[in-house]
């Protein structure tokens, strides 16, 4: 609520100045502005050399910040890339800095914004070793909608020789040779019976 009153009475918010005055200690005659603030201010008013020095100084300050903020393991994006993205944003938005305010909070506000932005953009491509997650990713093999019991039931509806052949090959996993030997018929007959059985099952499944 104090905020509201301050706003409407156009009263500056209580800050250190009033406290200093109340105990009769003179505030510094000119508030010391950081070198960076002066450089950007000069840069914005046309001193190109000052602007360049500001950007170099900003890059130096930001390097530490970026190394701390950027999580490791973003492929194709390192702290120096983030430094450059921040510098470009600073350049594009340099008119949003008010020359009377210190430049550092403004610089770091932009830096934080771009760090979060970079994490959103590049963080999605984080590469993860899938061998740690095999259990979570294991999917039941597709049995075409049939579970074992349904298969048995379907096979049971076949008759005579056909059923024996399909049971032996599909369910017991016997080879054509073994089946032919056991039923004492030719391999050709086993193949014919097997295919006929599968055809009947698939037609019944489709209907």
């Amino acid at each position: 609520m104090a905020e509201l009153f301050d706003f409407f009475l156009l009263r500056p918010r209580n800050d250190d100045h009033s406290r200093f005055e109340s105990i009769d200690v003179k505030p510094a005659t000119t508030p010391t502005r950081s070198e960076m603030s002066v450089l950007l201010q000069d840069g914005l008013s046309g001193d190109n050399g000052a602007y360049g020095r500001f950007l170099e100084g900003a890059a130096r300050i930001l390097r530490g910040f970026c190394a701390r903020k950027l999580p490791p393991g973003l492929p194709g994006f390192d702290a120096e890339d983030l430094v450059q993205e921040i510098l470009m944003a600073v350049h594009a938005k340099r008119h949003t800095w008010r020359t009377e305010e210190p430049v550092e909070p403004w610089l770091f506000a932009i830096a934080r914004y771009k760090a979060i932005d970079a994490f959103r953009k590049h963080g999605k491509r984080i590469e993860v070793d899938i061998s740690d997650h095999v259990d979570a990713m294991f999917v039941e093999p597709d049995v075409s909608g049939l579970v074992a019991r349904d298969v048995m039931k379907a096979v049971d509806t076949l008759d005579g020789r056909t059923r024996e052949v399909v049971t032996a090959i599909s369910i017991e996993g016997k080879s054509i040779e073994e089946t032919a030997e056991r039923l004492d018929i030719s391999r050709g007959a086993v193949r014919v019976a097997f295919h006929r059985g599968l055809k009947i099952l698939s037609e019944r499944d489709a209907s």
Partner: protein
Amino acid sequence: MQTDQLIAQLQSDAATKPRPSAVGWGFITICAVVAAGLALAATVGVRPDFSTAVETVRFDFKFLLTAILAGTALVALTELARPTGDRRKLGLLLLPFALLVGSVVTELAVLPASLWEARMVGTNYASCLTVIPLFGLGPLSLFIYASRKRAPLRPMLQGALCGLAAAAVGAFFYAAHCTDDSPLFVATWYPLASAILVVTGAVVGQRILRW
């Protein structure tokens, strides 16, 4: 690319091109007000009994409320359009909210309970819900445009604030047309109509106010 090269590039860019700028908020606000005013004049117009209505408290209160909402929302949105904007300015929005609540309480106290429902529902709710968003479209576009030229750290919040300010401007002019003056009507339908613009602003802001 090396950072040194980038810096040299940015430096030469600053030397050759004019520095980026953004249209002033004062000008944007005037344009928004004119846009909504023209929309009123070109469409539904002011109510026939406007000159007698201005003598009633309830009618005038609608303008007071919407003007204060527009003012506080604009202060908040211009502040948050800068990276170092003070987020506490959002607290200003409590003022129009308190005003609205106060007016409802007063209205309930002075009005017999039998009239409450009729005054709340009113007769113009359908036009209220369509005309306020329509009047607010121009201001919303202007506020979003001006925010885009700056550097809001929360694109979605910024868009929502643009929607709220636009709704207030739209509602200010709609109030001159609407014949429902009871705070019960205002507190029911104006916020609903505003919500349409706030949500629109938030969705648009989330998409185009990133930088």
